């Protein structure tokens, strides 16, 4: 079917302090352009062949490659984008760019609200890089950043704190984590994990594991003395056999935090929330924190609820601007939907995931 679609794709590469855009690099980009030429009929933001730019990022210099692609038919989309991804990768491999790919963005009109135009990019990514991918909404609704997410649990569990991630354990995890950093020599050669143990309706527990070839008494003793936490040994093989049981320390820490930024994922698209806006969601819930998804409220009703809600900071309970700001911000993120003067929670609210977003290059780095 003929459905023209233009994609503006950009890859940012990790910066390097001694990078400079020499003639040979320019020539290499030209050559790359000949190899991966594609048409845009002047419709994209970039040209049909790659253009290289540098960005000063702190002391170092990072490069970025820009290219646009016009897919005339729907089935051309994925191969065309995959081709571009291959080119991005080739640029990193051949040392044309300043380093490995750090992040990628894709831009097309109303990207945020066009899942079917997003899908080919997603598929192309998985095809070329052989790993999962998600989109992060940038400031404007036309640009998406490609990244990877660690999915913790449904947002609703995070709000009610009745899932496997509990803030009671967050300081413990952090204590173990910082002890690991304090005596790196002692703890090296092993990997450290958390196993959340959880049955719905009960308080979650965590068990700390370390895995390697042989158990180490001194590691166990030191950790117990220094952080008052017990590490249990597990053979690497056992660990690898059932990876979904275990969570890295950093991921548990992120998932159990009740401060800082909050990422949510809806339909493969990530959006950032500020915790200050969350009180609004609680206003939609009943006493047991169940969201009646089909209930709608007028502004006045929400305001009435805000005045007595324990989830709203005391100082803001009487503030109508506070309510307005929360409504505006959460509607922009499709968590609250205005419906003819009334407001409701998004019908798929239970499926909204609490996640942590990582740039492509940072996903693996998070484990150190």
């Amino acid at each position, binding site marked *: 079917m003929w459905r023209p679609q*233009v994609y*503006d794709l950009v890859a940012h590469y990790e910066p390097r302090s001694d990078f*400079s*855009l020499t003639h040979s690099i320019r020539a290499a980009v030209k050559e790359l352009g000949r190899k991966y030429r594609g048409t845009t*009929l*002047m*419709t*994209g*933001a*970039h*040209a049909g062949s790659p253009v290289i*730019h*540098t*960005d*000063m990022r702190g002391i170092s*210099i990072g490069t970025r490659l820009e290219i646009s692609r016009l897919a005339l038919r729907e089935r051309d989309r994925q191969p065309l984008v995959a081709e571009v991804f291959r080119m991005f990768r080739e640029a990193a491999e051949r040392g044309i760019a300043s380093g490995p790919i750090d992040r990628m963005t894709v831009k097309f009109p109303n990207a945020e609200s066009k899942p079917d135009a997003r899908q080919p990019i997603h598929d192309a990514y998985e095809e070329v890089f052989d790993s999962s991918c998600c989109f992060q909404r940038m*400031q404007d609704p036309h640009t998406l950043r490609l990244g990877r997410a660690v999915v913790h649990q449904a947002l609703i569990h995070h709000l009610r704190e009745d899932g496997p991630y509990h803030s009671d354990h967050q*300081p413990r995890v*952090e204590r173990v984590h*910082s002890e690991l950093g304090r005596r790196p020599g002692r703890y090296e050669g092993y990997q450290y994990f958390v196993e959340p143990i959880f049955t719905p309706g009960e308080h979650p527990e965590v068990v700390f594991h370390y895995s390697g070839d042989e158990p180490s*008494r*001194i590691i*166990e*003793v*030191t950790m117990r*003395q220094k952080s008052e936490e017990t590490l249990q040994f597990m053979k690497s093989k056992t660990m690898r056999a059932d990876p979904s049981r275990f969570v890295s320390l950093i991921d548990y*820490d992120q998932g159990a935090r009740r*401060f*800082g*930024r909050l990422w949510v994922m809806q339909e493969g698209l990530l959006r950032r929330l500020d915790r200050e806006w969350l009180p609004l969601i609680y206003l939609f819930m009943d006493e047991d924190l169940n969201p009646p998804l089909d209930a709608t409220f007028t502004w006045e009703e929400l305001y009435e609820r805000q005045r007595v809600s324990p989830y709203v900071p005391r*100082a803001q309970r009487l*503030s109508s601007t506070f309510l307005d700001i929360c409504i505006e911000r959460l509607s922009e993120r499709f968590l609250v939907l205005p419906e003819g003067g009334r407001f409701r929670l998004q019908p798929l609210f239970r499926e909204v995931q609490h996640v942590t977003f990582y740039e492509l290059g940072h996903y693996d780095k998070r484990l150190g």
Partner: protein
Amino acid sequence: MQCLAIMLLLSGLNMFYPLLFAEIIGRALPNQDMELFMSCLVGMLSIRMIGEGLGLWNGHLLRLVGGRVIFSLRKKMYDHVQKLSLGFFESRSPGEINARLMGDTASLTNLVTGTLLRTIEAVFTAIIIVCLLFYLDWRIALVALAVTPLHFMSYFMFERRLSHESWKATEKNSQVSGKTHEVFDASKVVKGYSAERREVRTLVGQLREGHEIQLQSGWLSSSWGAFTNSVSHIGTLIVMVACGLVVMWLDLDGFTEAEGREAIQQGVVTFSAMIAYVGMLYAPISQLIGVVGQIIPARVGLMRVYEILDLEPDIVDEAHAIRRDVVGRVEFEDVGFAYPMSKQVLTNITFTAEPGQSIALVGPSGAGKTTVANLIARFYDASEGTIRIDGIDVEEYAIHSLRNQMSMVLQETYLFRGTVRENLLYGKPDATDAEVVQAATLANAHEFVQALPYGYDTILGAHGARISVGQRQRLAIARALIRDPRLLILDEATSALDTASEMKVQEALSTLMSDRTTFIIAHRLSTIRDADIILVLDDGRIVQKGTHEELISIDGLFRKLYDPLWAREKEKQEEEELRALAEAETRESES
């Protein structure tokens, strides 16, 4: 509004010009009518002259309006940026903020001075002309309109690329300005590492790229212009052909020769007017396109300006914020804090400082001492728990009322470019000379200031260059003392002083500290020995609390920090214990 009226008047006037011209060609000349010829010429001249006059006046009005808009936008932005919290300034370089404040707002000038009005004018003119064309001859009007879609097609071809180029150009500018700012700021480091060449090379590389982007965007916008103009030329030509054909094929059967001549003449008049109008129709369309070319950079600028204006200050006064004098009782209750985007820095901090007490915060580097001070000054709001001053939550105070009653000497001393006196007066602009000298004396600074070439009127460089670090610290203390604050926070305020000078400052401070609450952060034992309470911080927690005598005699972090021999002993001992324990356990499990 006035501008709009003038513009419409102008374009209305211009409408008559082709009509008069057609009269000359079509009637005055063929009929050798001198009177008509002269009056048409006079008419044309007056249209042009009146037009110029109106244009002049209009230009002035536009500049006036534009200037005002830019001014108020800059003012708004500057106001806003000052309100933003420290996090904002930490995440952006000063040069970049400056580029947005000055450069991006300037790019909006074009938009307000005229672009908008000119668009309205162009649309208005185009509509009138289209009506006139249809009135004169509908067939030719259709021909003339047939090429306009081509004009609009070019919009889709060029707009996205051009707007991206202008974004790149602005971005590059702001990067370059951020970088230069930083490099000049750190000139000593750059020279110290003899990195001047490297910095120049980087910057030149960036400038070259900026230049290439400019070239590219210039090339795109002129191609767009050329494309539009070519379409217009072709359109005019087609219209001429059409007009010519209509006249050529004029059906003259049944007319006398005189009548025929008359009819042809009439045709010529109409068509010369039409050709002139068609030219005038394409002009506003080209102009509209040109306007888009101007709007694009302005839009990029506007977006960047609003990116900042849309940021909400993290710390704002509540509606009924309290303004009152404080006595100086400071309470922390279960305070937890995380910097935006980073991990928990403080956990469960609880303590009370009575008015007049001096509280020392000690602990290893990175323990969170400065962070505690930041929270007292409300540079950030605590994420958990409450901080009270005189029993009232700090978040309920008006920020300015609170900060006016405290002084901070920061770990990194900052002095402004200006005289010594001006820098001291920053703490209290209406202080008298006597107060200045008194504060300087207390801070043990008077002596060295007098020895400077111009005494209190010596000009310091930015960041207090030209005096030593210890001297800077003493000036910073004087600046803090001059406001006579209720709360005094000294973050490593005397770290760069020699012991003798520190003693002097210490003595002076101790008399001052007697009736105000003082927080002292220091690594040096001598600085904190006399504090009423010493809080020992480790990894964001208070691990010990007490006076010097109490703490130095018991095992713990404090003793570890200030009794290094003992600390080394202790560490060795601990390691042995761990090993022994591990061995014991191994044996146990084996048996």
